[in-house]
């Protein structure tokens, strides 16, 4: 009998060893894998009830704050401006984790970062709940104007300060209200999130940086930059209305079948596809893709909203022929890419990483970390940039983008619409031309944009309103903005 009791003991010991092994596997061996698992929302949920720093705009408006409430949970995350900053700030939810800045800068906001946690010598000895506050580069007035200007249209607008890379406004429509997702009513949150996820208009997606649309003439700026760098400044392209390419794709025709040609400036002013295609044949595709690459258009450059600049010449697109690429046919860009491209040109060819967060502050407002402008290289010489600026200014003065012209300042930019498959319209600009203070990209999409004339009028009006707001000009375009 004693011997059989020993059997039981050995058997129990054996199954307990299983527990020890499995515990070791979960808590030690595979712990990191589990912590980084995509379904793991523990980290965000843990900080949901904890004190959390606020997020403010460059002009001091609080756009996310944690307030104390009575009830089962001690604190509530609130977004005073509702959906206005939905795609910049993101959201934080008790069960579903978070997105945007709330997720990307969680360590600072929640006070996990050592620099935030230890703000003075006493913090070394007393473990107090220290949180960091984010100050964004986004300007509240510009963001308001961007929302009002886009109104009910679907699309996105991005404004960048060329000299510092600071994003002054980033608005994407349709949008969502993060207050609904940070609510304590967890069942309602789950419902709301499911509805947002299944919405075909994709309100959770930030169109400003993750929606690629065909660039068309916008991309010819890159072709022009390549041509100038290659010394083709005096080139005069023969007048044509159609170009037959070597590949089996459709021939390249000009819009409304016009015949055009001439020097680079006149190609830009007349939106001359055949002319750009001819230059593209001269330059070759490797030069064009190299130039796109150093402009940062093919890579994913992370910006600090936790989102990314998506590449445009993705491998699937590389089989486009050189003349097609040169004329921008089939080349796709996100609004953030387009604004970044024009900001680089406006900043005399020096690329600076777009950034949303300006600095992180301690509890007393002292600066804990400053995000300085980050140089990403110089894709074109300043002479080339200057020449491009002049060409784009001329385009607004007497070319295809005359609708962008303002009374008080000189604007350089481009308008593009009339795409067949996905009706959308672009307006990309920088102003003032002599000393650029902003680069802006506006994208409109939707079925109601079928008439290119009307579309260009609308997108130009939106762009002018935002430029006026940034430069603090009196606005004749937009009555009664908030």
């Amino acid at each position: 009998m004693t011997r059989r009791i020993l059997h039981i003991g050995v058997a129990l010991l054996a199954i307990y060893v299983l527990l020890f092994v499995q515990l070791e596997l979960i808590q030690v061996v595979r712990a990191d894998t589990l912590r980084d698992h995509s379904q793991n929302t523990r980290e965000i949920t843990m900080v949901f009830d904890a004190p959390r720093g606020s997020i403010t705009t460059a002009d001091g408006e609080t756009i996310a704050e944690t307030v104390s409430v009575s009830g089962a949970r001690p604190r509530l995350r609130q977004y005073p401006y509702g959906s206005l900053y939905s795609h910049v700030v993101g959201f934080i939810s008790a069960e579903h984790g978070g997105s945007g800045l709330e997720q990307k800068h969680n360590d600072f906001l929640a006070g996990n970062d050592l620099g935030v946690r230890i703000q003075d010598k006493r913090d070394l000895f007393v473990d107090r709940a220290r949180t960091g506050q984010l100050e964004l580069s986004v300007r509240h007035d510009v963001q308001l104007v961007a929302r009002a200007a886009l109104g009910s249209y679907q699309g996105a607008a991005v404004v960048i300060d060329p000299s510092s890379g600071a994003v002054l406004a980033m608005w994407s429509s349709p949008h969502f209200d993060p207050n609904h997702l940070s609510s304590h009513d967890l069942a309602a949150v789950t419902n709301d999130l499911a509805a947002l996820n299944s919405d075909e208009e994709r309100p959770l997606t930030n169109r400003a940086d993750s929606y690629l649309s065909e660039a068309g003439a916008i991309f010819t700026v890159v072709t022009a930059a390549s041509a100038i760098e290659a010394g083709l400044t005096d080139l005069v392209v023969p007048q044509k209305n159609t170009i037959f390419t070597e590949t089996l794709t459709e021939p390249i025709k000009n819009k409304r079948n016009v015949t055009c040609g001439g020097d680079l400036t006149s190609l830009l002013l007349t939106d001359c596809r055949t002319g750009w295609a001819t230059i593209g044949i001269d330059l070759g595709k490797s030069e064009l893709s190299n130039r796109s690459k150093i402009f940062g258009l093919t890579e994913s450059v992370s910006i600090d909203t936790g989102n990314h600049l998506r590449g445009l010449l993705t491998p699937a697109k590389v089989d486009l022929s050189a003349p097609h690429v040169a004329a921008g046919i089939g080349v796709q860009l996100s609004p953030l890419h387009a604004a970044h491209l024009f900001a680089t040109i406006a900043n005399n060819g020096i690329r600076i990483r777009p950034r949303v967060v300006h600095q992180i502050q301690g509890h007393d407002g002292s600066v804990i970390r400053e995000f300085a402008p980050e140089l990403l290289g110089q894709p074109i010489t300043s002479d080339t940039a200057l020449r491009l600026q002049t060409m784009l200014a001329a385009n607004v003065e007497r070319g295809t983008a005359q609708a962008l012209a303002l009374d008080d300042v000189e604007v350089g930019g481009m308008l593009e619409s009339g795409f067949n498959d996905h009706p959308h319209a672009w307006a990309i600009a920088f102003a003032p031309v002599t000393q650029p203070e902003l680069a802006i990209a506006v994208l409109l999409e939707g079925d109601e944009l079928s008439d290119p004339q009307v579309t260009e009028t609308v997108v130009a009006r939106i762009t002018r309103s935002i430029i006026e707001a940034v430069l603090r000009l009196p606005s004749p375009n937009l009555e009664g903005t908030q």
Partner: protein
Amino acid sequence: MNHQRIVELTLLLLAAFITCATVALAAVGEQVEITWNVVPYLVALLILWTIAHITLRLRAPTANGVLFPIAALLQGLGFALMVRIDPSLASRQATWSLIGMAGFIAVTIGIRNPQQLSKVRAPLGIAGVLLVFLPLISEGAPSGSEISLALHLGQLHIIPGELGKLFLIIFFASWLANYRTRNTEEYLGQAQHIEGDRSRLIPLLGGWLITSAILIFQYDAGSAIVTFVVFMSMWWVAAGRPLDLAISFGAIAATIVLATGTLPEFQTRLSAWIDPWSNTQLGDAITRSSFALAGGGLTGTGPGAGNADWVPGVTDHFAFVPIGEELGFLGATAVLSGYLLLTGVGLRIATRARREFDSVLAIGVTVFLGVQAWASIATTLRLLPPSAVSLPFISINGFALLTWHLALGLLLRISEIGPEAADQTSVLRKIKLRSRSQS
């Protein structure tokens, strides 16, 4: 002065210190609101331990001195961590601790000789079956994501399964002891195990039926495993025929295959277990307990700094999660070792028991405790399909706490080397030893 009681007092003081320290640490964690009104409950718990110690001194001075402090430490840790998660549970847990302690003292004082229980084995057996299956009869089978089986009496929420199992263990121990006294070949040194009469198959059949019923009507793999292992262990110790054991395992395997093939609810649980990532309803608890444990890592977040209420069922059958999360791998290992130690001491008591009944009962109670803890922890570690097995002494589960106190009382009583009862088997043991040395 009795040696065992000195050991017990020393260890109890240590357990009290660890418990108070854990409560204090959890209270210091800034995000946690342990208010001062938890302190009276903590004091009440310590007073109960003192009373238990004094009772043992007076009524069972030679009982084992290690068992009670380990159980007290587990209960104290459970109190500290669970009350941190939900402070409203403090009064409930304290009340049930009081009831449990009353049961413990009643067993210690009332049952001078465990053999007394044999006289009431029939009512105990019937009560046991009733308690195990009562919720099923009155409430129906668990549906959907509902995992535990509770009896609702007005406001009261009772899970009587464990108490029922303890009654069944007493009944079974009595039957097996009876069986052994009828078939004494082993004791007389004539055989390595008992050939016995055909009646040895009756408990096997009964154990198999009860286990199958739990599996088929309650879909509860954990509870079924506990029942089956306890019955088989007791039977193996008492009868010890490998062929019969193999047949029993075959029968239970057949039940499992049958249940998997025909019961959609059972299949749901199995699929949630195999792939918890895509089954959000039942799988959530499994994935989240893994995430929480991983979040704890080697050393844990510290008491009060975890986020365990994020895992569903964390104060009951997932009670191991906050331990692993807040005390880390090291703390969780300590708690695991605590259960292992309890089991080891229990088995040692079984080998030293004076009578057949005592020995088999000690085996039953010890394996019950050890395997219940094992199954509960294995569920949180994804070694078992989702089941409702509460963690002994730690889970906030009133009836189970009472059951564990009764079981502890029985074990302590068996461990006592009393002078009053004549050692009936001492002669037989000598014979057995002689027969062994010969072989």
